[in-house]
């Protein structure tokens, strides 16, 4: 079951409050949409398998858990991420203008120099658009980022956004292969960390 998975990728979703970050996440991972979703509570990260161009990867997509409200995301949130989705609301010019700040925060904290960025203009189902597609595209080009417009509500562009991002990550050498040179321990992983003592331990009476 596991053997066909190439790797696990950490993807971040960032951007101003209310632009639809959690909605994009829920639409993509569970194909759900909640019209009244107000402030995000209880969303941490979600995982999903994605197959694109014959490669299957597991995505761990991290939500901001509301810590973007007062720009208090912890540096650890950004660590080791291979991809970042920068979301703005096409009906909110201020949310688009704030992307500059989000990009500089990303540059400051991301630990991989060649992290793949994607700019997503969300809520294109709405009528009162304030940011044109051209402006969004120009911004993304200027920052060497991928670009797509989407609607978490109508599903438009959502699947495509994640697929394009993953393709670009896989094509980027050195970004995802064997990310750690040394063996790290996750304490909740029984097998890896070997919670059962070996005979080097003092609980073992075999010697």
């Amino acid at each position, binding site marked *: 079951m596991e053997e066909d998975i190439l790797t696990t990728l950490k993807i971040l979703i960032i951007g101003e409050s209310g632009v639809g970050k959690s909605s994009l996440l829920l639409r993509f991972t*569970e194909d759900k949409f909640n019209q009244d979703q107000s402030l995000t509570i209880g*969303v941490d990260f979600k995982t999903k398998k994605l197959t694109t161009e014959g490669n299957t990867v597991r995505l761990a997509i991290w939500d901001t*858990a*509301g810590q973007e409200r007062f720009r208090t995301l912890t*540096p*650890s949130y950004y660590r080791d991420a291979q991809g970042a989705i920068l979301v703005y609301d096409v009906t909110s010019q201020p949310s688009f203008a704030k992307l500059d700040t989000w990009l500089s925060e990303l540059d400051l904290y991301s630990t991989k120099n060649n992290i793949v960025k994607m700019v997503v203009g969300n809520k294109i189902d709405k009528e009162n658009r304030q940011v044109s597609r051209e402006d969004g595209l120009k911004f993304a080009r200027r920052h060497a980022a991928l670009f797509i417009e989407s609607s978490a509500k109508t599903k438009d562009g959502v699947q495509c956004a994640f697929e394009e991002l993953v393709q670009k990550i896989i094509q980027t050498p*050195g970004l995802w292969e064997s990310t750690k040179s040394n063996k790290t321990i996750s304490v*909740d992983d029984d097998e890896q*960390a070997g919670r059962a003592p070996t005979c080097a331990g*003092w609980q073992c009476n075999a010697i």
Partner: protein
Amino acid sequence: MSADALPTSYDVIVVGTGLVESIVAAAASRAGKQVLHMDKNKYYGQHWATFNYDDVQQWIGDQDTPLEEKSLDPIDKLEFLTTGESKRLVSNIRQEWFGGVVTKQKDVSKNSEVSGGDEGPVKESLTAVELKSRLASFSRKFNLDLAPKLLFFKGPMVDTLIKSQVSRYLEFLGVQNILLCVNGTIELVPCSKSDVFSTRTVTIVEKRLLMKLLTNLQSYKADSKEMEEMEKISFEEYLKQQNISETVQHYILYSIAMANQETTAAKGIKQAQAFLNSIGFCGNTPFIWPLYGTSEILQAFCRLSAVYGGIYCLNRSADFLATNEKGSCEGVHSNGGLLKAQHVVISTGLVPCRFVNREGPSESYQRAVLVTNKPVFPGGKEGISLMTYPFLDSSFDPITLLELNSNSSSCPKGYFVVHLISRKAKQSTPYEDFDKLIADVFSTSDDGEKPTIVYKLQFTVDVLTASQCSNLPQNVHACSGPRCLSIDFHSSLQEAEEIFNKMFPGEEFLPTPESTEDVPSEE
């Protein structure tokens, strides 16, 4: 601006993002309480912070700026109390750069993970001035801890991380070497059964005695008659009765029990048990190190709090505690407005002066952060080393030395970060004990095996513990700063749990989340 969007009423307001505060915030959010967590700094962790090189320089600058006194006229029935950090807790900051031979770094503007053609490390000799700018240019490759600590693999902190699933935000590295430096000689301390078998520093006869003693140490039961007796003698005396050589006594006293001459046998045995119980899970030492530094642990608890609805607000100070005529706290004043709360949790360093008793036993400690060019013990395994440096013929307490390399994400390849921790010596010039260790372990020229120091930062931290704060309103809870004299997180965890239980008796502390959200959905 956005600050105005803050709700004005909470179950708990937590002021300060130290570890105890962060655990309390996580536990309260987890129990469904509405939590506001704020810190006047732009970064997480206060005295627990992990900084890159530039941040360290910034932090040193901050410590030098005088504290501003805030005052405000009393308003209607509310008494205002100053909550600015009553006195600087960090003092005697000194830093120095030295010239030395260091590993030449590959072009850092390119992705350093991809190493093209391995020609082996190239060395270059730099002056102090060149090194200073070199360190600045690698600033972000450094993760320098103000309060470095380790976790026992089978200790209560790891249990809590697993149970609460905060562990999903963290990665660890096993500590590779337990070292002891006596009379200028560094030795590898045998900790596991296989170490005892293979060590060359003890004789065959002694191996059997050591093996028997280490097994025996674990048979003592807490609260037993035997243990009661152990309160009466020192651990050092106890070890002297055990028919083992001085070398082996030192191994157990200083490295395995991490004790000193004053430790009682009961305490020494307990500490040795904690050490021995964690052996055999992650290599041959009991310790793991949080990748990227100690501050990761508290950030992980803050993340859990946020996931459960906690509101995070850095760069925002709480200026006053608001109390009513009954003497209980109504909340805190911030930016001129009142934020109401049932409970206020606050760092001891921010508690108004009149509640703080600075007398009594002090846990104040001295710290040094060294950047060096070679490991202190080349004969050890590559990786993290924990060394104890006791003073056999003086009144100084042992110094704890923790050496981190680039694998632990503390520094660029080819460099090492060495942390020194010791009890603040009362009657001597600051850092006198460190100077002795440095003269023994490091070299000033690069011709020998010994490493040279290229950067040295020293500072002293006055720890205020919660027990030094008294007569606080019953719904205000003080949290101790980092207690660096013990290497693990146990006391902070215990303190956080006590505060949580006092605020919300009967509620479970950091329970396992029901069916986790991230059940993988298949394509």
